[in-house]
């Protein structure tokens, strides 16, 4: 039994014995001269053997939408959430396999087709992968699905043997009773004829009996990710497929004014120039020709109404709007009164920039649109949304829109939105045959949907002992939810915009949190790894640090006092501080900073250790992270997510900013939108708190926690408070 996702041979050199010749005929048409096999056949074979199948297949035994078992004993598990690096294909498989009583070496995986009725995430109410919700949403349903199948297989064996199911047991795909044994494959026909019990009627395994959950497991997607076999959306190959390069209006809301289509078509291998409302695509036999064609087209743009938008204007607009009261997210006690009588008062403004997702796999989508059907090959976090939107766009019934999902070359929220697929379908509407639309890195960064710019005003009052008696936090910025999930945007309040602000982990006797919605012109906004907490945890954890300093208390001790009512938060803080050697002396211009958060159902504390040189340059040496994410499914993935999530947040804290000038995004590639690189990556230590609490999410938690730990460490090293991200190292130069 293979544990690989893909069971076809690696696509090495297509021809084994013969030289393959691909060339251009006199008319610019691609022709293929070769021995055997043909390139078309090679592509066809690859397509047929596609890694993870999206179309549901039938099997003799399929008691629910997640498990299919063949007579041969082959077990296929359907993955309701998508794999974008977070290890969910392995953790979902672990949940199913634990109760099904099979090993991960016995299963194959497939991507789920779009189907909210079968695969909706119970937290997000749709088949969406995001908000670190997968394990929380599927902890019970997948274990129950496994238990249903196992119960039926045991009942089938008991029936065949004429004995009580209670004396039978299942292990590693075999049902046993005494010396008698039947494999699952031998039982599928009998099991399929039995009535399926309701999931709630079954007892699940006691966690103390888990053999898979909680034990480090090898990821099922790794083998294909080290040899080039893993298939991402951009790797799609379809017979007769063309490749399109795209130029979208550099100003949001603009459109092409004029272009030289003849010049584009004169480029070798270019087939067609397609103009749609907001973009131009050049279709060719390969990407290079398409790119050259796009350049040759020398497109002139009508910039439209956003031609003058600048980052500074957007910030001024936010600053002004944030002076007015917003929609109240939380109000307890009387902050006005408490502030008035406080022994000490503090105020601060914090700002966070627009951010692009910059997934390593640039945006892409392959479409084959026919009169009666549309096939889409893409990696998406939102398969049902994609299907719905494309059905509306094409006028086709939903069933005729087939979504062939893929492994995602990074998601981070970018692939929750379907704008790339919409553009690809609009291009396909003007074409015959399949087309793969691939965005350049510059298009990807300049036509992202961005993490909003946030402008936050805070105030606090301290009593004579320096402890907070009042806390106010007003956040101002775009509402992502009003666009993305309107039912969640109630009475003017965006729950994401205040997530991490309305429920800080600390006890404040008087607290007021409100939200001012400000939609910036000319720049679309979206969810970004860490969502609300990535914004608010930076603000809350920075300001609480300011309070500790103003109170002349140690930042860890101060937080501990305020966390007396919150044992899980207190425990991670205590552990992180201990492991980081909090309080031990450091060299000059070195400092430690701490952050604590409760988000996504998990608790996290981080201690960062930084060094700031006299010229202001910053080196992050070490991040110590303590985690309580409840029961752990795959400990190895926890460590990987802490490292990865931390670096994603650190990248943003150090470098991340999307700015606009004359309506255009000023950043374009990895030189101007800098990612963290290996030589800048600090040591990251992960310490897990053993917990029997309900599992929490972790894909995004460290992204949110790291930036305040770093800026608080900068304060400890330099006495300079960073209130605007990304960190401006010019502010950190030593006076001497």
């Amino acid at each position, binding site marked *: 039994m293979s544990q690989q996702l893909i069971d076809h041979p*690696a*696509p*090495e*050199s*297509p021809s084994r014995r013969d*030289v393959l*010749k*691909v*060339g*251009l005929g006199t008319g610019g048409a691609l022709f293929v001269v070769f021995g055997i096999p043909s390139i078309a056949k*090679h*592509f066809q074979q690859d397509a047929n053997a596609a890694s993870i199948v999206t179309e549901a297949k039938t099997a003799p035994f399929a008691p629910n939408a997640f498990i299919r078992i063949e007579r041969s004993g082959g077990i296929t598990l359907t993955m309701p959430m998508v794999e974008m*690096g977070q*290890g969910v294909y392995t953790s979902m498989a672990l949940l199913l396999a634990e109760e099904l009583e099979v090993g991960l070496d016995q299963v194959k995986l497939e991507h789920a087709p779009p189907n909210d009725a079968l695969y909706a995430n119970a937290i997000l109410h749709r088949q969406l992968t995001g908000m670190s919700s997968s394990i929380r949403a599927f902890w019970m349903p997948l274990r129950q699905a496994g238990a249903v199948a196992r119960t039926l297989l045991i009942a089938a064996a008991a029936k065949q043997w004429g004995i009580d199911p209670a004396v039978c047991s299942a292990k590693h795909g075999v049902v046993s009773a005494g010396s008698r044994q039947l494999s699952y494959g031998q039982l599928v026909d009998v099991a399929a004829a039995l009535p399926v019990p309701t999931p709630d009627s079954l007892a699940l395994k006691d966690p103390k009996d888990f053999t898979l959950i909680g034990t480090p497991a*090898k*990821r099922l*997607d*790794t083998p294909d*990710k*080290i*040899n*080039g076999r893993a*298939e991402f959306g*951009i790797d799609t*190959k379809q017979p007769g497929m063309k490749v399109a390069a795209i130029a979208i209006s550099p100003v949001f809301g603009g459109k092409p004014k004029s272009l030289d289509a003849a010049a584009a078509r004169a480029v*070798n*291998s270019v087939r067609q120039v397609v103009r749609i409302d907001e973009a131009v695509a050049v279709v060719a*036999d*390969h*990407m*290079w*020709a398409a790119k*050259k064609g796009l350049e040759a087209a020398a497109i002139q743009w009508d910039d439209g109404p956003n031609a003058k938008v600048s980052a500074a204007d957007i910030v001024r607009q936010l600053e002004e709007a944030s002076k007015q009261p917003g929609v109240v997210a939380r109000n307890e006690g009387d902050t006005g009164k408490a502030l008035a009588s406080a022994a000490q008062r503090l105020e601060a403004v914090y700002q966070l920039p627009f951010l692009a997702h910059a*997934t*390593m*796999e*640039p945006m892409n989508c392959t479409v084959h649109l026919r009169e009666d059907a549309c096939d889409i090959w893409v990696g998406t976090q939102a398969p049902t949304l994609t299907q719905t939107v494309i059905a509306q766009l094409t006028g086709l019934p939903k069933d005729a829109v087939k979504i062939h999902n893929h*492994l*995602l*070359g*990074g998601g981070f929220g970018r692939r929750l939105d379907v704008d790339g697929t919409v553009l690809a379908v609009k291009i396909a509407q003007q074409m015959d045959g399949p087309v793969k639309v*691939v965005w*350049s*890195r510059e298009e990807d960064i300049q036509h992202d949907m961005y993490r909003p710019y946030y402008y936050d005003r805070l105030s606090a009052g301290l009593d004579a002992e320096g402890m907070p008696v009042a806390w106010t936090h007003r956040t101002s910025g775009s509402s992502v939810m009003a666009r993305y999930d309107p039912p969640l945007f109630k009475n003017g309040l965006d729950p994401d915009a205040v997530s991490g602000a309305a429920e800080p982990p600390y006890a404040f006797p008087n607290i007021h949190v409100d939200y001012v919605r400000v939609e910036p012109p000319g720049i679309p906004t979206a969810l970004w790894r860490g969502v609300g907490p990535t914004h608010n945890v930076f603000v809350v954890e920075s300001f609480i640090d300011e309070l500790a300093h103003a109170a002349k208390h140690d930042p860890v001790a101060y937080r501990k006092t305020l966390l007396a009512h919150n044992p899980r938060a207190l425990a991670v803080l205590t552990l992180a501080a201990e492991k980081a050697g909090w309080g031990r002396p450091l060299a000059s211009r070195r400092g430690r900073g701490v952050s604590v958060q409760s988000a996504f159902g998990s608790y996290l504390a981080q201690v960062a250790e930084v060094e700031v040189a006299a010229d202001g340059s910053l080196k992050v040496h070490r991040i110590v992270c303590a985690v309580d994410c409840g029961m752990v499914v795959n400990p*190895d993935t926890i460590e*990987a997510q802490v*490292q*990865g*999530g931390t*670096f*994603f947040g650190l*990248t943003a804290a150090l470098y991340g900013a999307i700015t606009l000038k004359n309506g255009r995004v000023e950043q374009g*590639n*990895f030189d101007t939108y800098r*990612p*963290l*690189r*290996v*030589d800048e*990556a600090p040591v990251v230590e992960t310490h897990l708190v053993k917990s029997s609490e309900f599992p929490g999410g972790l894909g995004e938690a460290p992204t949110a926690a790291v930036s305040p730990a770093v800026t608080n460490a900068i304060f400890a090293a330099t006495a300079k408070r960073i209130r605007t991200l990304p960190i401006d190292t010019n502010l950190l130069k030593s006076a001497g």
Partner: protein
Amino acid sequence: MPFTIKVNGMPHSVDVDGDMPLLWVLRDLLGMTGTKFGCGMALCGACTVHIDGQPVRSCITTIDSVDASAITTIEAVGRTPAGRAVQKAWLDLEVPQCGYCQSGQIMSASALIADNPHPTDADIDAAMAGNVCRCGTYVRIREGIKQAAAANTNRKAG
């Protein structure tokens, strides 16, 4: 213009403009999609292949510059001792997350340990800083290179 290039030991003839980057020849003409497009400007390393054993960014390597050199891609790097050692370390340590950059990471890492049996942290920084990973697998990349280098050296010693 016709070109014949040698990829993973096999000759392939293509008729394209001489300025076409090797990346797109591999991906769009030869169907070898293990080599990834990330930036198109040699800024991210996702497209790294070996030419005569040296790591190069195929997105800026034009086909007319390749001549008869031996090109090795991720699909065949496991046939080399260093490539095999790196792949094994990547598997053992569970380095990949989304996996998209890992072809390039493995190609750069393989070239490093083939050339330098005992890479220091500074050597790793120098050889790998051109390979971006947005998932943040850098801690395990560093560990993986050290493990692979040790295994590769032991193999030679044995």
